């Protein structure tokens, strides 16, 4: 696969390098345009394909800026060659301002915002700018419209790139450099993090990835790429006409990129090629019926077909063919987790490792004497008129597995989200290892040593299991090799070694839960938050997952706060249990205590079920 891709890339480069010698000047001219459009498509890959932001008017926001930036640099006396190379950088301040605004919007709001800002530039700024430049620019001729300014081709050492073939090579070299940079970023941690946050923003945040910074970075980066393309375009056309940067071009390049494949640089190459070459191909010959404006019929229909059947476009055709509809494996039954070395523990009576630890400190006094890991003090959260937490407090010492149970709507998830930083409480504090983290944002809290899993299957579907764990290693800040070693170690201790190179879509649920736990553990958390890990698992799978967790705890020494409704799992795993109801802790104790607590029975089953049994240690929440 990799060698195949490398082969295609090299062959394409060789063909392009040889093209001017073989083809006529006209086709060289067309290929130059293809190279420029490929760069423009690449900017869409970065902003939309990778970071999930829709820039609907890239012709104005980026492409046009680049043209005018290059013009400005030339006007201020820079050699044209340097102006074209540096024009992209000059767009950064504009891009940064727009990105800072854009980051406030999501999804369709962002699409509308880019459309509106782009049109303001296209229709207002560029036109007026073009006109005033055309009037005032010294030594610039205005052969066509009143707002047209001319722009020379680059020259180096007198020889010059002004001919079609030399200019083609100039564009090609610049494009190859930009593509190589982007490709390189894409395969490293930055690219992984970007794709991670596009696919699963909340998950990315809890893995410590600074989502906002990345989103701004991707936006600015894409504008710079489009800017380089725009600068080349101005020089290619030997001038700037504001009307070239219109919405039509933006929609067409977006369609071409979607068809080519919006998730990869390869798709940008295909998209740029389609955009420039197709009109020429259908100009005459058998395909002439698609010539002229009819071509855009083909683009439109092609785009809808790709969205329907081939979301990753032509570039993703080979990789995606087998699972086009994405509803993979919905009918298959769930196997057992591959527990590997842990089978022995799994087959024990479910009282295994956890049972031994429990005897060490079974009373609350013992717990509170231990070093504190997590302390939650008197949390209160209201959503609108609903009180989700009403003075909930709990304590988890270092290395303990502590469970939080309670009926639907008792506030478990809210408490959990307060600890992981997705919800800020109205009142109350959260302390981690004695430090107050109440106001700390979710991604920074991950850096403080909190890892979490979700009830739903939160994994990156486009990455293999191993890559998922590596992507989760954002916080380690080690080089890739160290992160990979850590990931491999976790994979083998979680019994996932044999499936490391598979995509998550092919795995049974039990293994996916283990993958999620692995991802949460990569960054060496002190506290692991598990949100209903047994959801959807049967008894056997639940038991093996429980033993997996306690084994991993023994190996890595983290503490666990577990939200769970499955009491079998709680009983086999937890050393201490808190019962939450109506946003308050109504009881706490060992799992055994809790199961015999009349108050808990009453809460779960109703009033007439409570009878006087052995009274456990319990406390009622203070008013």
């Amino acid at each position: 696969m990799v060698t195949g891709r490398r082969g295609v890339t090299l062959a394409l480069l060789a063909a392009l390098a040889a093209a001017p010698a073989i083809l006529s000047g006209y086709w060289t001219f067309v290929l130059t345009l293809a190279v420029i459009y490929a760069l423009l498509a690449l900017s869409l890959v970065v902003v939309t394909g990778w970071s999930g932001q829709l820039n609907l008017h890239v012709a104005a926001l980026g492409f046009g800026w680049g043209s005018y930036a290059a013009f400005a640099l030339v006007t201020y006396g820079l050699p044209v060659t340097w102006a074209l190379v540096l024009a992209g950088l000059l767009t950064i301040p504009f891009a940064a301002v727009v990105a800072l605004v854009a980051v406030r919007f999501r999804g369709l709001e962002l699409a509308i915002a880019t459309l509106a800002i782009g049109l303001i530039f296209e229709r207002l700024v560029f036109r007026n700018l073009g006109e005033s430049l055309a009037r005032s620019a010294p030594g610039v001729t205005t052969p066509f419209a009143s707002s047209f300014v001319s722009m020379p081709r680059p020259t180096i050492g007198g020889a010059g790139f002004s001919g079609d073939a030399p200019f083609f090579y100039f564009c090609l070299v610049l494009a190859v450099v930009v593509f190589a940079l982007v490709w390189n970023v894409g395969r490293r941690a930055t690219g992984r993090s970007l794709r991670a946050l596009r696919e699963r923003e909340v998950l990315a945040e809890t893995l410590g990835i600074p989502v906002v910074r990345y989103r701004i970075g991707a936006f600015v980066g894409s504008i710079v790429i489009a800017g380089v393309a725009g600068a080349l375009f101005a020089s290619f056309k030997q001038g700037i006409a504001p009307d070239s940067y219109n919405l039509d071009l933006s929609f067409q390049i977006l369609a071409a990129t979607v068809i080519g494949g919006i998730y990869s640089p390869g798709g940008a190459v295909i998209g740029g090629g389609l955009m420039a070459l197709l009109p020429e191909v259908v100009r005459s010959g058998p395909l002439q019926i698609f010539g002229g404006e009819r071509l855009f019929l083909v683009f439109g229909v092609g785009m809808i077909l790709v969205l329907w059947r081939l979301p990753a476009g032509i570039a993703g055709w080979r990789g995606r063919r087998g699972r086009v509809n994405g509803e993979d494996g919905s009918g298959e039954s769930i196997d057992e987790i591959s527990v590997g070395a842990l089978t022995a523990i799994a087959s024990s009576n479910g009282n295994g490792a956890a049972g031994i630890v429990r005897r060490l400190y079974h009373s609350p006094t013992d717990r509170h004497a231990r070093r504190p890991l997590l302390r939650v003090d008197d949390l209160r959260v209201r959503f609108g008129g609903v009180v989700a937490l009403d003075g909930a407090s709990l304590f988890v010492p270092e290395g303990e597995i502590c469970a939080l149970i309670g009926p639907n709507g008792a506030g478990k998830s809210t408490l959990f989200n307060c600890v992981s930083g997705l919800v800020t409480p109205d009142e109350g504090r959260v302390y981690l290892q004695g430090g107050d983290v109440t106001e700390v944002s979710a991604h920074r809290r991950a850096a403080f040593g909190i890892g979490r899993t979700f009830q739903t299957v939160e994994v990156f579907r486009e990455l293999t299991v191993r890559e998922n764990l590596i992507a989760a290693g954002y916080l380690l800040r080690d080089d890739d090799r160290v992160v990979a070693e850590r990931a491999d170690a976790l994979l083998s201790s979680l019994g996932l070694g044999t499936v490391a190179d598979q995509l998550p879509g092919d795995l049974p649920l039990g293994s996916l839960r283990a993958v999620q736990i692995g991802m949460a553990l990569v960054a060496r958390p002190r506290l692991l938050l598990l949100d209903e890990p047994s959801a959807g698992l049967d008894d056997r799978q639940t038991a093996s997952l429980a033993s997996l967790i306690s084994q991993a705890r023994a190996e890595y020494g983290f503490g666990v706060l577990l939200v769970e409704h499955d009491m079998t799992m709680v009983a086999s795993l937890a050393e201490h249990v808190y019962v939450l109801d109506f946003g308050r802790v109504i009881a706490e104790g060992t799992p055994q205590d809790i199961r015999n607590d009349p108050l808990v029975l009453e809460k779960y089953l109703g009033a007439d079920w409570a009878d006087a049994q052995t009274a456990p240690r319990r406390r009622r929440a203070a008013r």
Partner: protein
Amino acid sequence: MLRVEGLDVFYGHVQALRDVSLEVADGEMVALFGANGAGKTTSLRAISGLVPLASGSVEFNGRSLAGVTPEETARLGIAHIPEGRGIFPRMTVSQNLKMGAYVRRLSPDALAARTAELLEVFPGLKDRLRQPAGTLSGGEQQMLAIARALVSKPKLLMLDEPSHGLAPIVVKEVFRLMDELRAGGMSLLIVEQYASIALSSVDRAYVLDRGRVAISGTAAKIRKNRKSLAGAYLGT
């Protein structure tokens, strides 16, 4: 009336129901109990066609409901009040009630007559007809949801946690109402998390545990079998 056999349902990778079979006879009130995530809501959603069946069959009055969409299910006389009641908060109470007649397309007169009948049963809604439904209290919203379901005179009424978020006195009122409906010949299938509230009303019950039917039988039998019921909720 309703017969479900060997039902398997998946959400992606998660198997939510495993070989679930249950029955509701004419004029019977049946409850589904179970802890969070036991598959109660999924059972109702599978019956009304909101989630596809992986295998198994659902029959309503002798007709197979396999592959039938929720809209068609509604037409066949099954009313399903979903989790969270599914009222339309921006619509007025009377518009919500009118939506109840969507499949029957009652004429304005017939709708007015039917609404008047229902307001006799739900006097609390009388003064609220022009109010957006979102401004009603939780109990009133539940009443509205039930009233809306009754507009089209369904043969089977399915309620998902009718007691959720309601004060005990309102819950009692809801169950009294359901007793009346059954007395009027309607079949009911209700989902409840708290067994004790419903056990005094229902004829029979099924207890789900992790997607399987763990216990089933008459209300009296389940009452006696409290240990295993506790087991289904709190582990054994």
